[in-house]
């Protein structure tokens, strides 16, 4: 991909692979960490297309366990599309098709014998707009464990999930009230807690804070840092400070404008977050993170 772009700013850094020749500013821990950790997702040359028209292509990377990985990039670069193919939510759009290989641990998620419902049990998702069910707080949490037939005391499952969502103290006295009465930030934490209740391995977050105020955003970021001890998290965000604050690894996507007004998203750079924000290999990444476009 380096050969195709115009070399607008003088290239001071050689375009080399993520871990080789790191500038000193990248914490050593993050770099060595990334190689030692088990890969949760391994993507090889993934392309997602809608009705045969590619929306994002050329995506190859490994996402590590217990990491927060941020997807950043301008609108239309396919980062949400890619996120949704990690738990097969794209299956809901009949015209969507995925090629290349998306492996979750060692299993190909798009193998014919894989049931998307089983995939989503292991890989939870939190959406852009808080979307609680129009039911009580308790029922919102209990829905997942019930439909999955999870054994155990439901009250305990609900309490555990709400504690994981850092919501228990705020709502323990009104578990039976409708979730629609909560603030936006609380609703989003409820959605995170609801995802926790089914005990997934991975949580995908699609711009989880874009509808929230800064204080609620802070609460959710804190929560994410707490959760990554036990979960792997992938977050799509438009907020670059957020990516810089919470993530370990960052993937930068960009839009390639093709002939006839067609656009396709491409993965430009995937590296430790500190590197992306301080010493990216690709000039487009630098332009984006410094606010020159997007």
């Amino acid at each position, binding site marked *: 991909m380096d050969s195709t772009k115009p070399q607008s700013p003088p290239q001071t850094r050689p375009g080399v692979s993520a871990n080789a020749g790191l500038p000193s500013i990248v914490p050593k821990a993050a770099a060595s960490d990334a190689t030692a950790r088990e890969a949760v997702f391994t993507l090889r040359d993934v392309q997602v297309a809608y009705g045969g028209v590619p929306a994002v292509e050329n995506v190859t990377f490994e996402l590590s366990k217990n990491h927060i990985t941020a997807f950043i990039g301008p609108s239309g670069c396919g980062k949400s599309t890619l996120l949704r193919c990690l*738990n097969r*939510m794209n299956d*809901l759009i*009949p015209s969507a098709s995925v090629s290349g290989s998306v492996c979750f641990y060692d299993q190909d998620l798009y193998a014919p014998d894989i049931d998307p*419902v*089983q995939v*989503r*049990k*292991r890989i*939870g*998702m939190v*959406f852009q*707009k808080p*979307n*609680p*069910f*129009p039911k009580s707080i308790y029922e919102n949490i209990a*829905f*997942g464990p019930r*439909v*999955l037939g999870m054994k155990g005391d439901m009250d305990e499952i609900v309490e555990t999930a709400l504690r994981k969502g850092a919501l228990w103290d705020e709502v323990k006295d009104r578990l039976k009230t409708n979730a*629609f009465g909560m603030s936006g930030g609380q609703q989003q934490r409820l*959605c995170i807690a*609801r*995802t926790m209740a*089914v005990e997934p391995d991975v949580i995908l977050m699609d711009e989880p804070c874009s509808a929230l105020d800064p204080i609620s955003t802070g609460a959710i970021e804190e929560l994410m840092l707490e959760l990554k001890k036990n979960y792997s998290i992938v977050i799509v965000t438009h907020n670059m400070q957020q990516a810089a604050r919470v993530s370990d690894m960052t993937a930068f996507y960009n839009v390639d404008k093709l002939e006839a007004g067609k656009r396709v998203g491409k993965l430009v750079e995937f590296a430790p977050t500190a590197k992306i924000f301080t010493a990216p290999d690709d000039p487009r990444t630098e332009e984006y993170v410094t606010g020159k476009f997007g």
Partner: protein
Amino acid sequence: MSVIPESALTRRVVEQASSGQRTRDLLFRAGLLLCLFITVLFLGVLVIDVAIDGVPLLTPEFITNFPSRLDASRSGVRPALIGTLYLGVLCAAFIVPIGVAAAVYLEEYADANRWWNRVIEVNIQNLASVPSVVYGILGLAFIVRGPVDIWGLGQGSPTLLAGALTLGLLVLPVVIIVSREALRAVPPSIREASLALGATKWQTIWKQVLPGALAGIATGVILALSRAIGETAPLILVGATAFRLSDPTVDGPFSALPIAIFGAAGEPREEFQILAAGTICVLLLVLLLMNSVAIYLRNRFEQKW
């Protein structure tokens, strides 16, 4: 003591509207009001006229007596009212599962890009506007002389069940259309939330989408039912009769309120015209009651997203 010259205070900055503009505005408003007035006037006159004749008849005996072709003063609506209630209940039992299931298929499963699904969709809308007398013929040919006869229930004679099925067919398209609208009002984000938790499509529809659409579906079903029980033509064709002297049974001959109105109005004697007015009052009360329930359900259970 003013230091500002008076001319500055009265200086016109904003121009006055021309009188022509104002007149046109006024005329437009008056026109709208007139249209509304005509609508309400006709409805009001109709209801008041019927009420003046009919309301004095509304005694307990009128409700519990059997009809009489000989003596209008002893005539009542008992078999017709019971027949109408039976028709409503049976019709609901028929249209709710089938109509809602069809709506769920079209809304949640059908791929709108496939031509056959589009054909079905357009035809359901067409079916909703087919005149009721056509459904009456259909009911006579395929229900009275069809399955109901085959099951040996009515031996080819009119039965209440055949009437209920015919009315059901008549309003089924309406039920499907309103149910689809109610399902569509459930935001896609709710479906995504449920599926992302590992729920199956069936669990998502059954536990999240349908409960969310319930108020809309119930309201639509009740409004469809109130159309069904007000219908006359299909019931005439499937053989309901006005002056029945026994209570209806599901597998036997029956009467219904619209049929009783039609029968009484067909009698030349004036006391029977008043009898028709009284029966209309009963039918209107039943419909009013059903619509009130629909409004209550909508206000009480409607989900704001």
